[in-house]
């Protein structure tokens, strides 16, 4: 008897990320596809806020490839998502460090960082002026400060998770977060919204 293909199609609805990760690590292609579908948006969003709209897609793909090829090093001691954020953040910060060392310097016209308050016409993202302004301000913060603010306020990570993702002690998490908040306020106030 021939079994209809739907009957044998795998369903992953109730399978936790961690179990899927194990299946994918053993070479299950469908599990790997499902993992990508589950994490691609948060990974892309994190990349968008860490490296900006011009490079987010490439970096998100790089991070996803890294996640899939390093699944065997995921031990399960942390949540899978936390581990994914760690891999993605490392990918983005490494990229930014390489870029900063690059002999090709970004001039004012070519700087991929959006100016504060300037919308990003090619990002495909609809957002109001205040959000556009805060994203611009974020992109002008030092990388480590931007990362901690995005992970905390946009991705909602707890201090323990931040400690794990950024590989810094909890005390450093607090002090860095505090410094980042102050720096962001200063940047935003140096570039107030334009009056109508």
């Amino acid at each position, binding site marked *: 008897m021939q079994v209809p293909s739907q009957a044998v199609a795998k369903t992953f609805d109730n399978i*936790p*990320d*961690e*179990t899927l990760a194990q299946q994918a690590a053993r070479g299950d*292609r469908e599990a*790997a*596809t499902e993992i*990508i*579908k589950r994490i*691609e*948006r948060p990974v*892309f*969003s994190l990349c*968008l*806020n860490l490296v900006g709209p011009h490079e987010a*897609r490439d970096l*998100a*793909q790089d991070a*996803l*490839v890294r996640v*899939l*090829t390093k699944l*065997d*090093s*995921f*031990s*399960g*001691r*942390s*949540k*899978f998502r936390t581990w994914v954020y760690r891999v993605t953040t490392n990918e983005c910060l490494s990229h930014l460090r390489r870029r900063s060392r690059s002999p090709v310097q970004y001039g004012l016209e070519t700087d991929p960082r959006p100016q504060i308050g300037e919308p990003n016409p090619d990002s*495909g*993202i*609809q*957002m109001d002026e*205040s*959000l556009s*302004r*805060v*994203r611009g301000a*974020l992109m002008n913060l030092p990388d480590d400060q931007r990362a901690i*603010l*995005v992970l905390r*306020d*946009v*991705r*909602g990570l707890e201090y323990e998770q931040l400690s794990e993702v950024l590989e810094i002690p909890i*005390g450093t998490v*607090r*002090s860095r*977060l*505090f410094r980042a*908040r*102050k720096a*962001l*306020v*200063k940047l*935003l*106030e140096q570039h107030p919204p334009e009056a109508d």
Partner: protein
Amino acid sequence: MSDLTNLDTLTPEQESLVLDAIEGQLRPERRPEFERLLDGCPGLEQDIARLTESRNLIAALASVNEPEVDFAAPVLERVESLAVEPETPILHLQHMDPPARPRLQISSTRVRTLAAAAAVLIIAALSFSFLKSGPVKPKTNPGPDIAAAPDGIAPDALDPSGQAPAPELAQAERELRSVELAQTHWTQTRNAEPTLAEAAALLSSGRLVIRTLAPSRDIARAGVDALKTGLDAQSTAWEIVSPSARAIAARFDQPEDTAPIMAMDEQTGLRLEIPRARLIDVWTARVEPDASAIASLVHSLRELGFTVRLEALPEPVELDDPLENALWWDQSPATWQPIESAPIVIETLDR
């Protein structure tokens, strides 16, 4: 508007209080402390309001409707192309094999044949050297086989080529060689080593033992210290838990045998007394039953200077798991990984 200098004077404790207040997570019992802080620092409340406003703006980015993405196909394509030409893994399976060493024959019933052959060689070498450059002075401390060697000359004092008296194999060099031979002897007298995949299956059934040999007590002690001080920080796939119970350790302790072990080094043609391996300690490792996790642990032990050999035990060994392992229980079952225990038997060469 102030330049936030009020915030620059806060202690780390006060910063923590302010961070909680900004995020609306100030616990009721800390509110009086927070209010005292505000009372004592005019202008601070306004600064905190500005921090809160910017924090809320960033948090609003989470609700931005970002474009749909579909990375599955390109990502899988890249992953599969990497699988065809994989990156160099951290540990190849081949790395589990012991390094090639000169073959070793340990004295046993064949020792007499070997001794006779050595004696013939020695006589030939001595005669040649005597004719060429005069007699060789006998050594004062000829070694265990002196009685078997003609003319009271230690066999290891001679160049195996028979060209001339050995260019005086220095004591240190001889010791080094005897350690190498002892390590080879130790490895060759162990049971057949399972593959990593077999080791993972043995680990799952409680039948894997990780045997290690340090070339000296100092290296063994340094290795044990490394285990105590958190060698397992190197990996998330395994951890070193604690020394095993005495009953477990006793299981791996061999009855003492004081007879010397002689080894023929085919590289130099010399017979040397080699040091015996003695049990130092037995530790418990908790390892994911996975080839890469075992390879990682073996690699780390080798980095400490141990010769490492995986072995199958005939019967499962019941290892004591200390209470701290229960800390895993507070995590979601979804995060649990199967993890198994194996003894790490630490031996050293008794020199």
